[in-house]
């Protein structure tokens, strides 16, 4: 088991390093050096040289990459050339907003999806089962930003049930939760169906098993059998798959943050891309990739500890 965790951790680290080096290499291979791109066409050579020096762009590529990696390992991601603030501060300031959004979406989707999937499995073939099947596929398919736009249009702007912009007043929990509703729905809607499908599939499998038959033979109430004996086991694979879904969650969060003008890492990255603010782009990509790689690693490890077969299969 320790060997497995170590191998997965090494692969995760490798992925992270590859991603950073790739991005770093590309920034410098593209025609037009970052300094002149950032300063625009009217910048004087002296100004460019000064900015290039401030950003460390006058050093050879390998030195720059080395510096960045060494800095990143110490938690130092460089300085934002526009505001002069530390990139790590800016990124860490925005990250909690995204985290809260993702957690709210996963939480809401589980609250709805788990009972739905459970009922669908118990009443297999009923209208509820068929409706769940159709709706899950439908909600998974529709792009989340379209859902976000329609929610914004009707619930935010037309009927004004929920706020359409921002994350709410800082320090005011109720206001922040109120602002969280629409973005979380747009992000979580597709997951309701997905979770329902997963829970249904694993419930059906578990309900066939011997210990459930035994529990029935002992005459335990059906509710106890379902909740205590079946659902508990059926939930495990679902939980681990949620960990693997963080990547697409981050993608969805970016759209939700932009549509609802909500602060967060996605919006930060998007704006940095538009301004060609490379240090912020690097920092934001590094932190999200790191977060993503970690959650994948965590779910891999949880999965493997539950199912020993996964530990031996090569490379997964």
């Amino acid at each position, binding site marked *: 088991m320790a060997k497995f965790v170590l191998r997965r951790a090494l*692969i995760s680290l*490798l*992925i992270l390093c*590859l*991603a950073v080096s790739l*991005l770093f290499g*590309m*920034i410098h291979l*593209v025609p037009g050096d970052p300094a002149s791109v950032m300063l625009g066409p009217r910048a004087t050579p002296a100004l460019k040289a000064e900015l290039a020096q401030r950003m460390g762009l006058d050093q050879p590529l390998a030195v720059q990459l080395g510096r960045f990696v060494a800095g990143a390992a110490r938690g130092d991601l460089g300085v934002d050339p526009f505001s002069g603030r530390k990139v790590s501060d800016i990124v860490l300031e925005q990250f909690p907003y995204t985290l809260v959004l993702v957690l709210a979406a996963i939480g809401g989707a589980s609250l709805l999806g788990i009972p739905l999937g459970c009922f669908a499995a118990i009443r297999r073939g009923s209208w509820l089962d068929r409706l769940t*099947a*159709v709706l899950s*596929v*439908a909600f*998974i*398919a*529709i*792009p989340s*930003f*379209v859902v976000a*736009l*329609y929610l*914004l*249009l009707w619930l935010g*702007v*037309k009927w004004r049930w929920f706020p359409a912009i921002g994350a709410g007043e800082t320090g005011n929990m109720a206001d922040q939760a109120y602002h969280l509703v629409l973005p979380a729905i747009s992000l979580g809607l597709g997951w309701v169906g997905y979770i329902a*499908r*997963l829970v249904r*599939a694993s419930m059906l499998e578990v309900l066939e098993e011997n210990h459930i038959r035994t529990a029935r033979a002992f005459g335990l109430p059906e509710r106890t059998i379902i909740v205590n004996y079946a659902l508990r086991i059926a939930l495990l694979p679902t939980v681990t798959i949620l960990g693997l879904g963080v*990547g*697409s969650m*981050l*993608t969805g969060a*970016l*759209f939700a943050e*932009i*549509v609802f003008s909500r602060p967060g890492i*996605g919006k930060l*990255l*998007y704006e*940095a*891309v*538009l301004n*060609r603010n*490379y240090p912020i*782009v690097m920092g*934001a*990509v590094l932190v*999200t*990739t790191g977060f*993503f*790689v970690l959650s*994948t690693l965590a779910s891999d490890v949880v999965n493997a500890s539950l199912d020993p077969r996964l530990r031996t299969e*090569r*490379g*997964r």
Partner: protein
Amino acid sequence: MSVSPPPGTVLRVTAALKRDPLGMAGFVLVGLILLATVCAPWLAPHDPLEVDVTNRLSGPSAQHWLGTDQLGRDMLSRVLFGGQVALKVSLIAISTSMAIGIALGMIAGFGPRWLDRALLVSFDTVRSFPTIMFALAIVALIGPSLNTVIGVIIVTSIPVYARVVRTQTQALRERDFILAERAMGASTFRILRDHVFPNIAPPLFILASMDVPAVIGMEAGLSFLGLGVSPPTPSWGSILNDGYSYLRNSPWPIIAGGLPLIAVTLGFTFFGEALRDIFDPRLRRKDA
């Protein structure tokens, strides 16, 4: 090496679709959208780029069935022509990533073990990277264009096909007819081309049809962020972007831009699921 469908395929599909109303609905929806998109130049009531400033952000009328946008351009015409962008991107992106994925997958499945491992790690790396971050980073560097979008989609879709091809190639690799070929001295290339490929191809088309909604969604998403087609070319995503900017003035651009996206993703998904149930019931058991 031609991959012709087994005899009776068309009959089987029509018979199965008759029993599956949702799959049938998806098929009809996909057919209608494809037809409307291909015939856009003849169906569109107006030039999608024709500006009419006296008639900005109007609601549906006899003249403009879906209203007009912030420049007074006809929404229906823009939506019809926007479909061409979506169609073009999905055709190019899916066929290219499928071709590369097949090649890499067969190499991984048939080649030496170190190569297989190296390819697997690279597939996982690409697959695990949050797509949008990758896309944004690339666009930040190369600049927005439809080709960038297509490139990003190709790179991120290759592992989808390559992984399936690899697994299937590995399963075939030890089969008797492959061993016989090898005993007769056939080259690896010949074995892969004439014997492995025809055997693994059919399920890939189901995979491709299920990949269409994801690809169209991605193109629309990137265009919505202003990273795809450049204005004034209409794409469903850029229509939504325009609509978002003028949301408080008129809801119609968003409604008109979102509906075809919803229709096309639902249509392809239901049709793809029906196809999968018909041709590959094994896939079904796994995730449904």
